[in-house]
């Protein structure tokens, strides 16, 4: 309305000035210029294209009516005026649209600037935050300010579960905590949402999406949300995005701090374990030696003979456990650099069999392998340990007469070798298969004695094989009773 009044005034003034010009004897071209100026001014001070174009047409009609003979009619004597009218109208329309466009752009720029400023303020305030709650508080304050309403925020904790309250802006300076009861439904609703927000009776809920999961919700009352302009919506979305970034950052830094702490603890644990193992090794060798000495001094019918034998066997087991702990801490230290060299597999198998049969007499271990030499890029010490542990494991769950088989197969297609170590023991209880490689997981099949403790042996196998980029599995034999461990190693490292 105010624009129409403004248009009327300007056009009226232009007509007055035009009249003055005619009376002063100026040619009527000046009047055309005055009208063009008027249209320009109207376009400048009104918004949109409509008024400018309307003013252009009215100006032409006014010029025709007031300043061309016959005066005060819409007809003309001189047909050349028609050309003037057309040019005048065109010029006026072009001028007005150009002006309007500039103005529109200015407006848009202003909006952009406001948006940027708001976002900048938000971001800079969010940068220093250390807690999620702080982020939520700043976010709702800023959003409330921009939308000129009071919004609320609910955030999800690190485990991805929603908190049971909304942090709600009450006034520009006041925030309260509003508890909710349906926090369990929130997750479902969020999961069912595809548009970035969902609606209930009172609120629109905008979802704050983090890099990996949902971080929270921003709720805006329905009346406000429905009236939101596109520009405001854009700003709102940007603000939510910034909030998400800040929340992500906080969770990430917390996670990093926690994992750092865990690594340090892990390392300390490893160092401690390694230190203890080192110190245990020498006295254990001593005990083993002393027990052997005592054995040689004792008649094997003496009851003490068996007691000493038990001491010796347990100590040998403890000693190998200590060695295993040392290997494992070396492996789990993370900084383990595998000392990989091209090794002949037959040599490793040879040494492992000799090592094992030195401790356990009377077992038959057979080896089947390709006729040509198999060279594998491995850390020979570790793979030797793998063979020793798997053979010892097979021996522990087998009886002397039953053969233990080592089968080596080359899989050229997949560029790897596969090693199977199969025994004819009682096999593995199916339920225990998934846990068999876990540290200190001991079979429940038999009562625990020095022969059946598993301890770390299989864990080391798994860790070592995985470190080489291979795989290891345990299963029961299909042909006869017994277990088989199958591992693969890449042929090119």
């Amino acid at each position, binding site marked *: 309305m105010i624009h129409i009044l403004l248009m009327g005034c300007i056009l009226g003034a232009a007509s007055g000035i035009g009249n003055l010009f005619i009376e002063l004897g100026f040619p009527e071209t000046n009047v055309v210029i005055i009208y063009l100026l008027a249209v320009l001014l109207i376009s400048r001070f009104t918004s949109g294209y409509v008024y400018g174009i309307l003013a252009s047409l009215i100006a032409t009609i006014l010029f025709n009516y007031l300043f061309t003979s016959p005066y005060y009619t819409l007809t003309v004597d001189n047909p050349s005026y028609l050309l003037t009218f057309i040019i005048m109208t065109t010029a006026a329309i072009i001028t007005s649209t150009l002006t309007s466009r500039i103005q529109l752009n200015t407006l848009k720029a202003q909006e952009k600037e406001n948006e940027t400023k708001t976002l900048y303020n938000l971001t800079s305030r969010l940068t220093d935050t250390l807690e999620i709650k702080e982020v939520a508080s700043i976010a709702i304050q800023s959003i409330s300010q921009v939308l000129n309403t009071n919004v609320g925020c609910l955030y999800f904790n690190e485990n991805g579960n929603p908190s049971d309250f909304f942090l709600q802006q009450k006034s520009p300076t006041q925030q309260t905590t509003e508890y909710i009861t349906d926090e369990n439904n929130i997750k479902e609703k969020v999961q069912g949402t595809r548009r970035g927000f969902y609606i209930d009776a009172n609120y629109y809920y905008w979802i704050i999406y983090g890099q990996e999961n949902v971080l929270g919700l921003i709720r805006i009352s329905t009346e406000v949300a429905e009236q939101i302009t596109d520009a405001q919506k854009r700003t709102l979305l940007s603000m939510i995005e910034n909030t998400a970034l800040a929340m992500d950052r906080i969770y990430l830094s917390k996670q990093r701090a926690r994992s750092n702490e865990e690594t340090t603890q892990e390392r300390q644990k490893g160092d401690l374990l390694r230190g203890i193992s080192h110190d245990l*090794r*020498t*006295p*254990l*060798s*001593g*005990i*083993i*030696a*002393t027990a*052997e*000495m005592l054995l*040689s001094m004792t008649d094997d019918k003496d009851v003490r003979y068996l007691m000493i034998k038990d001491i010796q066997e347990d100590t*040998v087991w403890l*000693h190998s456990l200590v*060695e295993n702990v*040392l290997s494992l801490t070396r492996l789990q230290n993370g900084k383990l650099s595998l000392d990989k*060299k*091209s*090794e*002949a*597999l*037959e*040599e*490793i*198998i*040879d*040494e492992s*069999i*000799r090592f094992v049969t030195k401790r356990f007499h009377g077992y038959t*271990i057979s*080896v089947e*392998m390709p*006729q040509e*030499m198999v*060279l594998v890029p491995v850390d*020979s*010490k570790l793979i*030797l340990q793998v063979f020793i542990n798997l053979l010892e494991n097979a021996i522990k769950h087998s009886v002397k007469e039953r053969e233990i088989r*080592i089968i*080596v197969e080359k899989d050229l297609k997949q560029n790897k070798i596969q090693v199977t170590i199969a025994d004819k023991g009682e096999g593995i209880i199916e339920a225990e298969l998934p846990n068999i490689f876990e540290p200190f997981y001991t079979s429940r099949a038999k009562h625990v004695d020095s022969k059946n403790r598993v301890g770390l042996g299989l864990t080391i196998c798994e860790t070592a094989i995985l470190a080489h980029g291979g795989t290891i599995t345990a299963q029961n034999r299909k042909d006869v009773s017994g277990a088989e461990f199958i591992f693969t190693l890449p042929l090119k490292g």
Partner: protein
Amino acid sequence: MGQLHEKILIVEDDIQIRKFLSYILENESFEYKTASSGKEAMNSLISESIDMVILDLGLPDIDGLEIIKKVREWSEVPIIVVSARDQDQEKAQALDVGADDYLTKPFSATELLARIRVGFRHYYRMSSTKTQSEIEVGHLKINFDKRIVCLKEEPIHITPMEYNLLALFFKNIGKVLTTKFILKEIWGTAYGEDTQALRTMMAGLRRKIEANPAQPQYIITEIGVGYRMIEQ
């Protein structure tokens, strides 16, 4: 088998192991002397006549390698080193600077005595001027004069390089030979440490003399150290 005039020096800082070693040697009627530190050991070696040294590599005062190097400056006395399982590097180094054999803790009396026996036998063989022209290990026989190797009395076809390698093992029966030592003896120094070539040659040789290369009867592998021809 103890010969009373042979005196063995035990260098070991752990009292239990030292007692154990002493007990075994005493049982076998060897004469022995103990030292709990490198300094003590050096004193004994300088002032007394010692026929063999059993040396722990992890001594508190002097590095075991240093002791071996020093001793080798004036003496060829057999040295058997004793080490923990994760000391491969040091084991190989010890052998390369002049130790004769090694034992990994924990070891049994049988193992120790076997090593001592090999050590003495080798020592006497090296010092005697008489060289055997034929040696037999199990079913494997070598004739140095004719440069032939027979398996179950049947001559086997081997390349000159393989013969040299096998001859080297026959001259050092029971003794561990480091990869470095073998490379130097067979290829000369120029080849440096091309362990790959040696490994391939070993694999080839094993396929000619062993029934099952993964469970060899004659030449066994000492992972990370070298090879050893077993006494039958």
